[in-house]
């Protein structure tokens, strides 16, 4: 009987992971979050607390947790209220969690990363596998957080081989009622693109990602795994499948039009303008062969589903600022 702990259970995607584990595993399941989860979490025991490192160690020891899953990244499913807070959550909390896991003797840790960490460049192969080095030229926002977490945790795993660390590099989420940066981009009436370029992009349905987290928790594999729906599509095609029309801008103008070109490197997919020029498409064959994971939702189906749920996005857009406001109020 393994005991598993899902970190950040108050987030939608963590709840989805907990639901998958509730159905497919039999061991004890603990959900740790700062607030009560807003979505069903299956049979997970919910613990709402803000724990520091030492308290985490105590919790992990007391409950004899063997597997820890960290499927949450600030700025992905939740809006970012302050950059400082996001960095704190994404990087420092993960470091703290890893440290606590090593001390408490946790056997497996599953962390979330992004396929964007490889960066977009014309020198990249058409399908990037897990051995490719990470991009080191992005120094702002969510992408920097991802790259820091990714490289720090791999370094940490080298020093603590007993930890069994597994990194799941996920493509941008689309679907499942989750408002990710990509769905916010696709919800714009005319998503901006770069004139003369049409990179290929990948998407991932959160349910498929949740399945991968579950399979990773149950497997014995370690290392990094790319996750994405099969068959990448071109950006303009993706926008059209989502029921919108791309609006190409000439490059000098683009840097003025696109809000992500300014200071906000957290909310505007794909966070760096490079990704509008060159594709960053990950090779998912390792996850398919070693985790025996397959994406059930195709890229086309996921994007097509957006057309029918555009009204949901309108709702999500109105909820996001409210959530941001409330979390600002509750922050100390």
């Amino acid at each position, binding site marked *: 009987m393994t005991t598993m702990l899902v970190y950040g259970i108050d987030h939608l995607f963590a709840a989805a992971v907990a639901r998958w584990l509730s159905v497919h595993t039999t061991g004890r399941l603990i959900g740790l979050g700062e607030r009560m989860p807003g979505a069903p979490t299956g049979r997970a025991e919910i613990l709402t607390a803000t724990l520091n490192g030492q308290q985490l160690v105590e919790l992990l020891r007391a409950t004899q947790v063997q597997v820890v899953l960290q499927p949450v990244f600030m700025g992905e499913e939740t809006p970012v209220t302050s950059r400082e807070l996001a960095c704190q959550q994404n990087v420092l909390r993960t470091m703290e969690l890893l440290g606590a896991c090593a001390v408490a003797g946790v056997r497996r840790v599953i962390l979330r990363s992004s396929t964007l960490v490889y960066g977009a460049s*014309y020198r*990249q192969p058409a399908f990037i596998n897990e051995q490719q080095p990470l991009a080191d030229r992005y120094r702002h926002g969510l992408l920097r957080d991802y790259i820091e977490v990714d490289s720090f945790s791999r370094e940490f795993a080298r020093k603590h081989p007993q930890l069994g660390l597994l990194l799941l590099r996920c493509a941008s989420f689309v679907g499942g009622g989750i408002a990710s940066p990509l769905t916010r981009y696709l919800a714009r009436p005319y998503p901006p693109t770069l004139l003369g370029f*049409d990179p290929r992009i990948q998407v991932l349905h959160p349910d498929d990602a949740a399945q991968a987290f579950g399979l990773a928790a149950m497997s014995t594999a370690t290392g990094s795994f790319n996750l994405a729906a099969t*068959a990448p599509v071109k950006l303009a*095609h993706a926008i059209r*499948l989502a029921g919108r029309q791309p609006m190409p801008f000439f490059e000098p103008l683009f840097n003025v039009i696109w809000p992500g070109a300014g200071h906000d490197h957290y909310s505007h997919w794909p966070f760096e303008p490079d990704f509008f020029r060159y594709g960053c498409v990950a090779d998912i064959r390792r996850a398919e062969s070693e985790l025996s994971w397959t994406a059930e939702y195709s890229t086309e189906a996921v994007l097509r589903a957006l057309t029918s749920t555009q009204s949901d996005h309108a709702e999500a857009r109105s909820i996001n600022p409210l959530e941001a406001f409330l979390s600002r109020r509750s922050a100390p």
Partner: protein
Amino acid sequence: MNQGAMESELQAHVPEMSVEEVELLVSQRQTASDSTVTGQLSPIATTRPPPSPSGDEPVFAADGGTLSHPADAVYELELHMREQSRHTGSADPDSVVVHNFVADVWRLIAENLERMAPPQARIAFDLLRQFRIDGQDYLSPDFWRGIGMLLAYQLKEQTEFIRRRLRGEYQTDPYGMDREVIEIVRPFLLFMYRTWWRIRAEGVEHVPGDGRALLVSNHSGVLPWDGAMIATAVYEEHPSARIVRNLFLHWFSTLPIIAPTLASMGQVPAIPENAVRLLEDDELVCVFPEGIKGIGKLFRDRYRLARFGRGGFVQTALRTGAPLQPVAVVGAEEIYPLLGNAEPIARLFGLPFFPITPFFPWFGVLGVIPLPTRWSITFCPPIPTTEYGPEAADDPLTVFMLTEQVRGVIQQTIDAKLQERTSIF
């Protein structure tokens, strides 16, 4: 289509034709039928009347009833024109060129007709017939009404196509290849292939009908027309109409417009991982190991192969067990006679080189029009690599040996073809 069967069929119908004429007809019909979408032999070859010895007014069958598709009647015209060029050929070489050109135009029209829906093709054919038989019909309002209807129909087709594209109802492969874009570009490439450069492709039968293979070609001609023409040769002349995935210098991915167009046409940046993956997917990949050194070759160095990179293409073939297939392109060296390379300008714009030809940059955009040289593309027999095993990819001796072997075959074939050639045009 079995050539022997077709020959006997033809002879049964047109007993008065000489064997030579029949052979000519067969070869022409084959190229024509290969280019059709269905690939079937249309009934023209059997219903074709014997060529009239006078050779004046054959052509549009007045009723068109015996022909299944209007395009066949236009193919008739093309054949007729070729016949005429053969008859007058020895007497007047200039008229051969004109006749062949007109024949090519007819073929172009016929191929476009084939792409139309039958009723639409019928209307277009009727218009053509009117146009040809009686020029006075220009003055008839019905003539213009007909043209108007035709244009409206075309417009409707086109707008529906664009609407469908805008709704995202199309497919691309994982590398971004878009068959519909290929179909749009194809007539233009075919024109360059048949009419502009009058390319003769030899040994296409050496290209495998399925399964992986790595075509290795010499590179020349400033702009990578040779890659496009190799792809056209295989797509048009090979019975299984395979798509060649050319590997292009990854620097081209940095160019706006060009990068997505190349990707849509099924071409892939030349990165070893891409080549391996494509070959593992049993694709037909074409590589130019000379790279920039080949394409930016000066005119005085033409047809002397540059260094074949570092043998990376051989490693790729060894890793995937794909046969290496040397391809020799002759004629592409002269399309832009490269007199010099203005390096300072190239550095200023971040280009690999800046070509100076007799026409570029002096004539601006017009200088980009390639010279209509006559080409030949020779596909040599494949060199199998499975016997060495994938681990040989890490053995420099085997890699260099194979690299030299391929390079030698290409150089020899080029030399032989240059000997055969009488004029560059």
